C-alpha cells in the first residue's frame, strides 16, 4: 500500500517537473516565434539608416540629432565604418533591411555604381555638403613647422631626387633637406591606406611634392607604359611609395589613435582632420602648408591646398518608402545646418559655396549622372 502511494507521489512530482521543463521550452519557443512574427511586421522601418565614412560620422550625427529634436520623425541611426564599406553596404540592394544613405569622404567609384546597378540600386543621389581640411600637426610644446608639399615628400617618400638622380631616401632629420626646418628627427603618423584621407594626402601632398622636387620627371623618364597616360600613372605610383624604415607610420585607426601616438612620441607629426585639430588645440600645434594656416576660411577660399569634398549618397528608391528620408536630406543641406554659420561649420566643416545648387538638386530629387 505504502509503495503504491509512493509511486503516485513520485508520478505527481514527475509530471510537475516535466510541466515546468516544458513550460520553459514553450516559453522560449514562443518568444522566438513572437520575435520572428514581429520581425516580419517590422519590415516597415520608420527610422532613417545611415552608414559610411568615419570622417563624415560626426557631421552626420550632429544633423541626425538636430533632426530628431526638431521633427516628429525618429532620430536617424548613424553608423561609421569607412567610406568604401558604407558605399558597398548601400549597394547591397533595395529594401528596408538595407541602409538608406552612405556617407563618403571620397567620390563614389564606377565599380561601386556597377555593383549598385547589378543589385537593383539604379538611382543614387549624390550630395556634396562641404569640404574637410587635412592638417599636419605636432606636439603643442614642440617647434613650429612650416611645411610645403616638397618637404613632406622629401621626408616620407621611399625614393627622392638628389642632384638630378633618384636615390633611396637618405634623410633622417627635417633640416637635412630644408635648412629652414627644425633639426628634429623625421617621424610622420600618416593615414593608413584604408582611410579616405589617404587619397587626398597622396594626391595633394605627396604627388604635388613629387612634382615640386623634380622626382616626378625623373620617374616619368624611366616609366614603362604604352602611352603618356600609362606612363604618368606609373610615375604617380612611384611617387606615392612611402618609406618603410619606420619614419613613416601608417595609422589605420581613428584620429584619436594618432593623437595618442603623438602624445607618446613628442617628435612625431600627425595628420588630422581640421575639425579634430580644432577640438584639441590645447595639445596640438598646427603646421602651415605653403605658408597658409589651415582654417575654415583659408580652405573655403582654396588658399590652403589640402582639402577634399565630403559626400553622402542617397538611395532614391527609398525616398518615399522610409518616412523622413527626404526631410533629413533637405535638413542636412539647409543653411541652418550646412551653411557657413551653422553647427557643422562650427564643428570644422568648410561650407560648400555651391550649397544653394545642392539644395535645389535635393528638392528636385535629381539623381547623379554618370561619373566623368
Amino acid at each position, binding site marked *: 500500500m505504502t509503495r503504491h502511494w509512493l509511486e503516485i507521489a513520485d508520478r505527481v*512530482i*514527475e509530471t510537475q*517537473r*516535466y510541466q515546468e*521543463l516544458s513550460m*520553459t*521550452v514553450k*516559453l*522560449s519557443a514562443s*518568444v*522566438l516565434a513572437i*520575435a520572428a512574427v*514581429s*520581425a516580419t*511586421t*517590422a*519590415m516597415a*522601418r520608420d*527610422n532613417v*539608416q545611415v*552608414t559610411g565614412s*568615419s570622417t563624415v*560620422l*560626426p557631421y552626420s*550625427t*550632429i544633423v*541626425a*540629432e*538636430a533632426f*530628431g*529634436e*526638431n521633427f*516628429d520623425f525618429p*532620430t536617424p*541611426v*548613424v*553608423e*561609421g*565604418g569607412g567610406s568604401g564599406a558604407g558605399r558597398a553596404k548601400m549597394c*547591397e540592394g533595395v*529594401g*528596408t*533591411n538595407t541602409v538608406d544613405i552612405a556617407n563618403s569622404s571620397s567620390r563614389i567609384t564606377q565599380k561601386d555604381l556597377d555593383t549598385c546597378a547589378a543589385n537593383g540600386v539604379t538611382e543614387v543621389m549624390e550630395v556634396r555638403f562641404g569640404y574637410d581640411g587635412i592638417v599636419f600637426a605636432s606636439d*603643442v610644446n614642440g617647434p613650429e613647422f612650416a611645411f610645403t608639399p616638397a618637404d613632406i615628400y622629401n621626408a616620407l617618400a621611399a625614393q627622392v631626387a638628389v642632384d638630378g638622380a633618384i636615390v633611396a631616401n637618405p634623410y633622417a632629420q627635417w633640416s637635412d633637406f630644408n635648412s629652414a626646418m627644425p633639426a628634429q628627427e623625421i617621424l610622420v603618423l600618416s593615414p593608413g591606406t584604408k582611410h579616405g584621407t589617404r587619397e587626398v594626402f597622396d594626391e595633394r601632398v605627396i604627388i604635388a611634392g613629387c612634382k615640386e622636387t623634380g622626382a616626378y620627371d625623373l620617374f616619368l623618364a624611366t616609366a614603362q607604359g604604352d602611352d603618356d597616360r600609362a606612363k604618368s600613372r606609373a610615375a604617380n605610383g612611384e611617387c606615392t611609395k612611402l618609406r618603410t624604415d619606420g619614419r613613416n607610420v601608417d595609422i589605420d*585607426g*581613428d*584620429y*584619436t589613435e594618432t593623437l595618442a601616438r603623438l602624445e607618446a612620441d613628442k617628435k612625431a607629426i600627425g595628420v588630422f582632420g581640421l*575639425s*579634430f585639430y*580644432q*577640438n*584639441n*588645440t*590645447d*595639445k596640438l600645434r598646427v603646421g602651415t602648408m605653403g605658408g597658409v594656416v589651415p582654417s575654415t576660411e583659408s580652405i573655403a577660399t582654396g588658399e590652403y591646398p589640402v582639402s577634399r569634398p565630403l559626400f553622402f549618397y542617397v538611395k532614391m528608391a527609398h525616398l518615399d518608402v522610409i518616412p523622413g528620408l527626404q526631410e533629413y536630406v533637405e535638413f542636412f543641406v539647409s543653411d*541652418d545646418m550646412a551653411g557657413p554659420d551653422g*553647427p557643422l561649420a*562650427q*564643428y570644422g566643416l568648410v561650407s560648400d559655396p555651391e550649397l544653394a545648387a545642392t539644395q535645389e538638386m535635393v528638392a528636385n530629387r535629381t539623381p547623379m549622372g554618370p561619373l566623368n
Partner: protein
Amino acid sequence: MTDATSANVPTSAPAPHKSSLLTQTALMKKRNAAESRFKAYGIAAITLSLSVLAIMLWTIFSDGVSAFKQATFSFPVTLDAEKLDPRGNRERDEMMRVTTIGYTNLLNQQLVAYLADRGISTEGVSDKDIAAFISRDTPARLRDMVLANPDILGQTIQFEGFATGRIDGYLKGRVTRDTAERDTNISVAQLDLADRMISEGILSASFNWSFLTAPDASDQRPEAAGLGVALIGSAYMMFLVVIMVLPLGVAASIYLEEFAPKNRWTDLIEVNISNLAAVPSIVYGILGLAIFINFAKFPQSSPLVGALVLTLMTLPTIIIATRAAIRAVPPSIRDAALGVGASKMQTVFHHVLPLAAPGILTGTILGLASALGETAPLLLIGMVAFVANYPAGPLDGGMLDPATALPVQVYSWASRSDPAFIERSAGAIIVLLAFLVVMNIVAILLRRKFERRW
C-alpha cells in the same frame, strides 16, 4: 665463536649516516633554494599582474569618475510667447516651426540679460562667448517642455540646463587655465566668468543621473551623452540570450553526456564544440549578418539580431560548462537512482540535473558576462552606431528597434574628437566593470551556496 664472527664483520662497511634533518646538507640547501626561488617567481608574477591591473583600474577611474558629475546652471527664463508662438494660438504644429535655433537664441539672450541684472561682470567675454556656456542640448529640452505644456508660455520659470563640455571640465578639473590658454574653444576670461557664476550660485556641479539614463549625443555636446540606450540594449540582449542559450545549451549537454552513444560521431561533435568555443567572436558577427539580416531579413541594429549572434557565440561555452557540471555528479547517484527503478530520464531530471545546477548557473553567468562585454560581432550587424532614440518597451517590439550596447558605447566614445568623450568613455567602462563584477560575485556566491562536494 661469537667473538670470532663479530671480529669477522668487515669494519669498512659505510658508516651510518650521521646527518640530522635539522642541519642542512649541500643538496638540501640547493633544493630549498629552488623552492624559495619558485615561490619568489610566483609572487613576482602575481605582483606584476596585480600592478598592471591596478594601473589599468587607476587610469580608468581617474579618467572616468568625473563622468558621474555634471556642471549645471540654473537661472530664470522668461518664455516669451511672441517668439515661441508667433501666431499665438498654441497649436502644436505651428509652435513646432520655432526650431531649437529659436530657443537657443532665446536662452542666450536671457542668460546675458540675467548676468547683467545680477551685476556680474562679463568683462572680456563677448555675448557669443557667454552663449557658449549653454549646452546645445539645453534648447531642445526647453522646446520639448514648452511643446508638452504650452500653458507655461509667458511665464518665468527657473530653468536648469547643462553647461558645455569645456566649462563642465573646468568644474571637474579636466580643463585648467593652462590648457584654456592654448585651447581655441575656451578662454581664460570665460573661466573667470565661470568662477563668478559659481560664487553667485548660478553654476554648480552635482551627481549626473543623466549619464546613466540619457541617450547618446552628438560630437558637439559631450555633456549630454549618456548610457541610457546602451543599457537598455544590453539588458534586452542579455534577456534574450538567457532564454535562448540556457534551454539549448542544457538540452544539448544532457543529451551528449547522458544519452548519446560514445562513437566517432559524438567524438566529432565534441571536438567541434571545443573548436567553436575558440572561434574569434567577429566570425559570429559575419555569420549573423549573412543569416539573420541578409537571409532572414531581421532589422539591422536590433537587440534581437545582437542576441542571436551572442547566443551562437556563448552556446559552446555554456555546453562545455554544463557538460563538466553534469560529469562532476558522481556515477553512484545515477546508479542508485537506476537501482531503485528510476528511468534514465527520471535519473537525469530528478537527480543529476538538480545536483549539476550550481555548476550550470555559474557557467551560464560567466558566459553571459563575456557576452555582455563583446563588441566585435555587433560591429557587423549595425549595433555600433549613433542611436539617440530609446527602443520601445519589450512587449511593443522594442527588441527590434535600433539600440547599442555598453561596450559599443565605450568604443564609439573613445574614437570621438572632443576630449570630454574620453572621460565619458572611461565612465562607461566603470559602469560595464560594475556589471561584470556583480555578475561574477553572483556566480561565486551561487557556487558557494549550492556547491556540493563528494
